[in-house]
């Protein structure tokens, strides 16, 4: 009985000490992180190397949970930065972010910055096919979006339901900008649409199913870990989308938030991102090893505004085809 009590005492003293240290540091910063926790840990470490005076607290949750939280807290915001969510989710609650022109604004292609400077691009989560090479030799794998509709792939494709998230809808929107609903009807016959984006690449990696569509960084990560998967970029091209970061309007630490944005738009942040196979939006940033260079990936002129405008109608139509199937 003595040991737990002593241990508790020690734990309490450690906690008190850490509180005192916190008080001694001048500034705090609260980051709402929607991406991988490993990535944000490294990002904060790199940020603190340049700005040790700011103590960063990370709150990790899903994109939907964070946008819900930011909306619910709008009258009394508790977070300073929203980090790593798709641009679609930023656009959905764009008014809740504060315009701030960062020190590195000139280094950005304007297409990767909100016109009102409320958020900046972070990476380009290009969508690609993930193929389990144990179950399907690469030669027989689909090469194009149109291939996904071929009868030989029936029962071998896993996709995320487009209602699930901005990125999941973007897959549908890309196919609709390249083809029409006839293709989608065929693909719905072939594929299973799950309710978690993570399940798509995990089930392919684990060998539960042959083919999925997912972000390229997931595939590169799995390959680096030794899973038997490969990436195929659809030949018609994959849409150039981006995810973003921005300052939450009315957050508790506005100055620290600006310091963070200035740093996060600098090359130092993109070096961290590259380690996690994130394709940078800044053209002068290093391309991650293990990803094909952007110039070699077939892309097409994806129109995100058109996609956003059609979203409700598209999803309604998709639901009809999906449940009629």
């Amino acid at each position, binding site marked *: 009985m003595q040991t737990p009590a002593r241990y508790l005492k020690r*734990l309490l003293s450690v906690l008190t000490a850490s509180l005192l240290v916190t008080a001694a540091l001048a500034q705090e910063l*609260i980051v709402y992180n929607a*991406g*991988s*926790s*490993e*990535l944000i840990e490294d990002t904060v470490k790199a940020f603190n190397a340049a700005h040790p005076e700011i103590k960063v*607290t*990370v*709150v*990790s*949750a*899903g*994109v*939907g*949970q964070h946008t*819900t*939280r930011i*909306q*619910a*807290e709008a*009258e*009394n915001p*508790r977070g300073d930065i929203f980090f790593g969510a798709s641009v679609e*989710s930023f656009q*959905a*609650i764009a008014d809740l972010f504060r315009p701030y022109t960062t020190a590195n604004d000139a280094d950005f292609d304007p297409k990767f910055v909100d016109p009102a400077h409320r958020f900046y691009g972070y990476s380009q989560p290009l969508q690609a096919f993930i193929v389990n090479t*144990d179950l399907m030799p690469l030669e027989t794998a689909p090469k194009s979006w149109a291939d996904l509709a071929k009868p030989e792939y029936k029962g071998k494709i896993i996709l995320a339901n*487009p*209602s*699930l*998230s*901005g990125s*999941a*809808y973007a897959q549908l929107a890309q196919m609709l900008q390249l083809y029409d609903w006839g293709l989608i009807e065929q693909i719905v016959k072939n594929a*299973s*649409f*799950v*309710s*978690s984006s993570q*399940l798509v690449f*995990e*089930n392919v*990696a*684990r*060998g*539960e199913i042959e083919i999925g569509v997912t972000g390229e960084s*997931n595939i590169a990560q*799995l390959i680096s*870990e*030794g*899973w*038997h*998967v490969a990436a195929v970029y659809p030949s018609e091209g994959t849409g150039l989308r981006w995810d973003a970061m921005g300052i939450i309007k009315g957050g508790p630490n506005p100055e620290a938030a600006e310091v963070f944005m200035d740093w996060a738009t600098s090359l130092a942040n993109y070096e961290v991102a590259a380690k996690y196979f994130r394709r940078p939006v800044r053209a002068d940033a290093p391309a991650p090893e293990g990803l094909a260079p952007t110039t070699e990936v077939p892309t097409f002129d994806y129109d995100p505004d058109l996609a956003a405008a059609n979203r409700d109608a598209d*999803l309604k139509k998709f*639901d*009809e085809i*999906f*449940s*009629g199937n």
Partner: protein
Amino acid sequence: MGARRVLRDPFPILVGVITAAVLGILLIYPIGKALLSSFVPQGEALALKNLSLVNFQRFVTSPLYKSALVNSILVSLATTFFATILALPAAYAMARIKIPLKSLAMSLSVIPLIAPPFIGAYSWVLLLGRRGIVTVFLQENLGITLPSIFGPFGIILALSLSYFPFVFLIVQGALAAADPYIEESAAIAGARRWRILRTITFPLVAPSIASGALVVFIRALGNVGVPSVLGGDFYVLPTLILFQVEGFFNLNGAAAIAVVNVLLVLVFLLFMRRFSGKKRYVTLTGTTQRSKQNDSLGARVFGNVYVWGLLAFALVPQAMVVFSSFAERWAGTLLPTSYGLANYRLILGNVLEPIFNSVWLAGVATLLALAFGTVTAYVSLRRRFPGKWLLDLTIMLPFVLPGIVTGVAYLTTFNSGPIVLTGTSALLVFGYFVRRLAYAFRSVSASIGQVDPQLEEASIICGASWGGTMRKVTLPLIAPGMLAGAILVFSTLIGELSVTIMLFSGKTKTVSIAIFEYLTSHRIAPASAMGTVVIVITLLLVLLASRLTGKSMADMFK
């Protein structure tokens, strides 16, 4: 007379007022607001002029909503049925048959409730999926092809095995506490064993069965993780809530689906009332003694095989979590290619604070739930007042609603205005408390129902105050029920994710959040190590609680 009683003993009034205030502020106000928001279109203020049924329209127009509704009803009913069928023989065996290491079996049966978030369903895929360990083994060695684990069958299997303890624990307790004289009298009168079971034992524990089945139904109805992992295209109502929140940021739409959930539970509740009847059987009287154990060889063999077999199946997901935690390298192969403690070393720096947070947050919430659950259960059973069922339903509400709806209700209510709690630990504690109050309430109700009110009346007649009677007569008699409730509350809170993820701040990171963080970067092995730590710590705390109170686990649940 009435006025004099009040003056002499203001205690019950005081307790009543405090309870009403706490429930009003922490439960009725935020949750009521959330429910009302389902009658307002997305983006509109909660006002009379904005009222509409637009959020409910999809249940009529959308085939997707209709099929999800049917799927939800199917999965929840089937899970409730199978969980109950699985639990009843085990409960009977535990209460009436000699089983070695009974206390261990009881403690182990709590573990399926501590399913670390998301990991549970994955384990079934790891074992029984297309490239699962068992599937491949059977195929390569015996030429047997297993049916696919994906689909409604897999969902119902996984859910039944993880929720049967709710029925098992409650019914086992009721059986153990049931007055053995009634059954013995029947036996002496010449009734056969089956007839006794059907006409005496079963009616005696029917309210407890109904109680446990209700909890299973609600849990199955609200579960989103298992249908997501094992369901594929098979969507249930929580899947649609996920779409509304994640895909459309439409909380009003999510609340509308939640309201449909509540209606389903209400229908089930009314059905269960019919099933269990209005009669209550008082079984804890002044003369209660232990029931006789069945010593026949056949009964003992059946009882042991059944109880241990069921536990073995139910603990498979948790065993897989422990197994995965030792896998240092497991990518694209049937079994890990290297084992070791690397995952535990990895989590070492990240485990203490979350565990500490989880234990104390869940602990305080458990105490609160216990205190207020006991008072409300007592009032609801011992006092007559109109609209009792409304109190019952009110307490169930936060439990029925999806965590994210409760979480958002709390965020918006306590973020600005008269009471500001965002970012504090209190917000989480209160959120946990209202969400699990129903467990404490149910568990204590069942045990108060078994106490003969004449015992209390005798104490009052002898001149004891209400407080004194509570302290010296009622509380000791219902203490096992309270402890059982506390264990249910605590062990289901320690891994709670859905409310936590909406309400935690950087300073109140819990183990469930730590596990979630590992999963966001697909680090399943360290997440499993963290999950293993949670399982072990909860088990130790449950055993410690039974040691401290001098009760064995088997005695607690009666």
